[in-house]
């Protein structure tokens, strides 16, 4: 009962983690950087601009008086009451 020797190629036994890292780490870094850039230019920059525009011509006294006339404060009532 003898067979002719049939053999498969020896599978790769070493360097598996290194191979995986060489493939996945650049992708991971690239995706992370893209996510950070997207957040910066999609969220933080518009937000900084919105705040800058709001406070460019902001008159605190005028806003206070408007709010006072609307009657929301308890320490100062609207003028004339």
């Amino acid at each position, binding site marked *: *009962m003898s067979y002719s020797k049939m053999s498969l190629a020896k599978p790769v036994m070493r360097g598996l983690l290194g191979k995986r890292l060489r493939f996945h780490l650049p992708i991971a870094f690239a995706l992370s950087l893209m996510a950070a850039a997207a957040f910066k230019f999609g969220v933080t920059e518009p*937000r900084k601009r*919105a*705040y800058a525009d*709001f406070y460019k011509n902001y008159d605190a006294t005028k*806003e206070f008086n*408007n*709010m006072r006339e*609307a*009657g*929301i404060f308890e320490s100062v009532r609207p003028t004339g009451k």
Partner: protein
Amino acid sequence: MLHLKLGRVGCLLTRRAMVALTDSGARLSTHGHHEVSDQLDMSQPMYWDRLDTPLPDRPWKDVLDATDKSLKQKEKGPWSALSKEEKIALYRLKFNHTYPEMKRPSQEWKTVIGGMFIFFGITGLVVIWQSFYVYPPQPPTFGEDWQAKQVQRMLDMRINPIEGFSAKWDYEKKQWK
């Protein structure tokens, strides 16, 4: 008792749990012991049909008649001398189901989905009954007038005037942007 080979299953199932998970194939095998009850003898090597553990502890047919025994004798020689039917017969001696037979689809999903929908329906009826007979009256803060006054007060207080609520209100034109 932990050194017992639990059916060489590489997981934490006990043998009894494995029996529960396999078919009743183990009970229907032609095993040679005479038990009055239908209870499986867990101290003997077991047979199972499992996709993930292919080689059970014992073959399917333990009790061999004369033809089976002669076939097993022939198996001890060169396998090239076996015919195709003999090889299939040897397989059927050793195993109950083939892999395709083990993987055959069942209609169980219909029962599962049907049962799910039945319980969704019962729950829906319960919820509807609740809304009529259980819930207390709604608080006044839900009314239209109250909500309108609330929105006006939020705008007066300049809630989130830069990016949020009041930022969407045009204070000059007195309308939403």
